[in-house]
């Protein structure tokens, strides 16, 4: 059901939601960027409607609402374990269609891949989604190629057009309230991108054989294994565990889970001191084939949602979409080598 709300009416809606939800949205942190006098846009709990960043894509993804960079799971003493508190409130998450598609991927790994993950589930249960429309393509996104440029799978959609909030919602329990704030009924369709600057095509015949291609070698030197591409990725789900004992009392401590990156040193360390994938090119191969091959083989659809954040943030200007588009050539190179051409 569509409505058009002005700033005041939207403010009332916002206060209504706030009673029940923590509102997570892309927020601009002035001076909070990596470099001097630059801003950062990332997810945070917003307290005012105007804190929601509608223009610039968040550098870090929605996933921080369910998979924080670092999360304490429980506390332990010599004899007892105490679970860390679950979030007190439900969460209303403002996100774009690419991130909304990523929710399905995250659920796939944490809920439908064996037993559901308890700590994920207790956050996920309280999530509601507000999809921000995209009136134009971002610089590096390739959502159209990945089929993630549109979605109906939202509780509400929102477009901020000329100071008016254009809302389309799919929940009966909000209906009376929308009418109550005086928002005007209208025919509302969220804006969507129909063409990106970047297009990708994952080869139909892609197999793990492409790992033998020389295409990965350049990344041994070019990539600095910082892991930015993983940390910003809305579909990267890996974490590692940290057990620590407090300094003042070595008998008590906590267990945390912390986002992990397959590009960063230590990811493939195993008992006995061995480590697989030492070269950055090997790590790039692993990441790429997980995103566009291995996940699909297991679950039947692509993992990468084409948000382009990995390209946006790479300090070495390595483009993931460019890697995808070289896979076909890589497959051909391997086939030619095998057939002795």
């Amino acid at each position: 059901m569509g409505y058009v709300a002005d700033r005041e009416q939207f403010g009332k809606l916002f206060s209504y939601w706030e009673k029940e939800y923590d509102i997570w949205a892309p927020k601009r942190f002035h001076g909070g960027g990596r470099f001097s006098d630059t801003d950062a846009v990332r997810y945070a709990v917003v307290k005012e409607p105007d804190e929601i960043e509608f223009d610039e894509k968040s550098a870090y993804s929605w996933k921080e609402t369910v998979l924080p960079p670092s999360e304490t799971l429980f506390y332990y003493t010599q004899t007892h374990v105490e679970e860390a508190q679950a979030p007190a409130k439900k969460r209303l998450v403002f996100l774009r269609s690419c991130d909304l598609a990523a929710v399905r991927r995250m659920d796939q790994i944490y809920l439908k891949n064996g037993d559901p993950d308890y700590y994920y589930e207790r956050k996920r249960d309280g999530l509601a989604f507000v999809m921000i429309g995209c009136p134009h393509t971002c610089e590096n996104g390739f959502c159209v190629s990945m089929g993630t440029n549109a979605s109906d799978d939202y509780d509400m959609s929102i477009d901020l057009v000329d100071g008016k909030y254009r809302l389309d919602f799919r929940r009966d329990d909000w209906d009376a309230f929308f009418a109550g704030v005086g928002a005007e009924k209208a025919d509302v369709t969220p804006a969507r991108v129909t063409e990106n600057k970047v297009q990708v095509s994952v080869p139909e015949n892609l197999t793990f054989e492409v790992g033998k291609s020389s295409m990965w070698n350049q990344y041994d030197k070019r990539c600095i294994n910082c892991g930015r591409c993983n940390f910003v990725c809305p579909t990267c789900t890996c974490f590692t565990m940290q057990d620590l004992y407090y300094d003042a009392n070595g008998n008590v401590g906590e267990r945390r889970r912390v986002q992990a990156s397959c590009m960063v040193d230590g990811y493939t360390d195993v008992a006995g001191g061995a480590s697989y994938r030492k070269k950055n090119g090997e790590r790039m191969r692993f990441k790429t084939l997980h995103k566009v091959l291995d996940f699909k083989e297991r679950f039947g659809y692509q993992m990468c949602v084409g948000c382009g954040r990995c390209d946006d943030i790479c300090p070495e200007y390595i483009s993931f979409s460019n890697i995808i588009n070289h896979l076909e050539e890589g497959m051909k190179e391997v086939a030619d080598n095998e057939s002795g051409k």
Partner: protein
Amino acid sequence: MDINTKELKKNAFRVTKVRGVTSSRVRVPGGLLKAEYLGKIQEIAEKYGNGTVNLTARQGFEIPGIPFEKIPEVNQALQEIIDGTGVNQTGKARGEGYPASGTRNVSACVGNRVCPYACYDTTALAQKIEKVIFPNDLHVKIVLTGCPNDCQKVRMGDIGIMGMTEPQLDPERCVSCGACIKACRSKSVDALTKVHFRPERDTYKCIGCGECINACPNLAWTRSPQKYFRITLLGRTGKKNPRMGVDFIKWADEDSVIQIIKNTYEYTRHYINPDSPGGKEHIGYIVDRTGTEEFLRWALKDVHLPEIAEVYTPLNWSGIEYAHNKYFGNQRYHEDGTIVTDFSV
């Protein structure tokens, strides 16, 4: 030909080795100017000079080969550049050129408009300082650099201003990747150690370079809203006792920087040797005469430093003493391998 060389120099023209020929010294505060003024400089060089331009050590232009009689015309032509570079022309009418040239161009590295390491807008602060100190005949060199890499070599100037940021850690955003610790160890002062999987910053060691912030993949480290500066004092080149500036204040704020600069001018005006050649004396030599304590008494007047600021004490300069042998003799190797001190030179 009758030319007042004192006035000529003050007007930013040079007495050159060729009689009757001068060069025009164009100041560019902060080293940044609109490209259109390059065209103007070219025009002056080709119309009045010998068609060449010298890029000066302190980020100005020197246009050589100008006959003295062309000075009024050159000054007219310079007006656009003077306006465009934000030079404080107080004391001269428009079209009469620069009012002073004693204090040198406030030079600055490229700063945070371009460089990812820079901790502040060096150009803007240089232009601000220009407005505060010019016109001025005192021979003072103020140098700005964006970060402790010190590409602009602030320790060679009387007052050096080095950008700093105080790294802020949001521990909840830390993913224990170790990038900050590695960057600090390999590129800076090794001020970070891993404590319970997260970096701990040794505030005594930290020089506020921001390497940890640039290295952090997850914005766990960010920059302090407040911009900070390391102030270095009384570096100098020259024929007596060249030396590098020493640390004066770590974690100073911009207001303090400006106030200390103003105070240093007051001190210099008060104590400069009236017989100094050309009215120029490096401040360092004046401080050698009055003692550091007296200088500090002046320099810190009305300065309200932020709580975090550290004032270094005592201030000890070292450096090359060209006339050293006059006072201490020369160490000479004797034929038999012993070392003797020779006072005969």
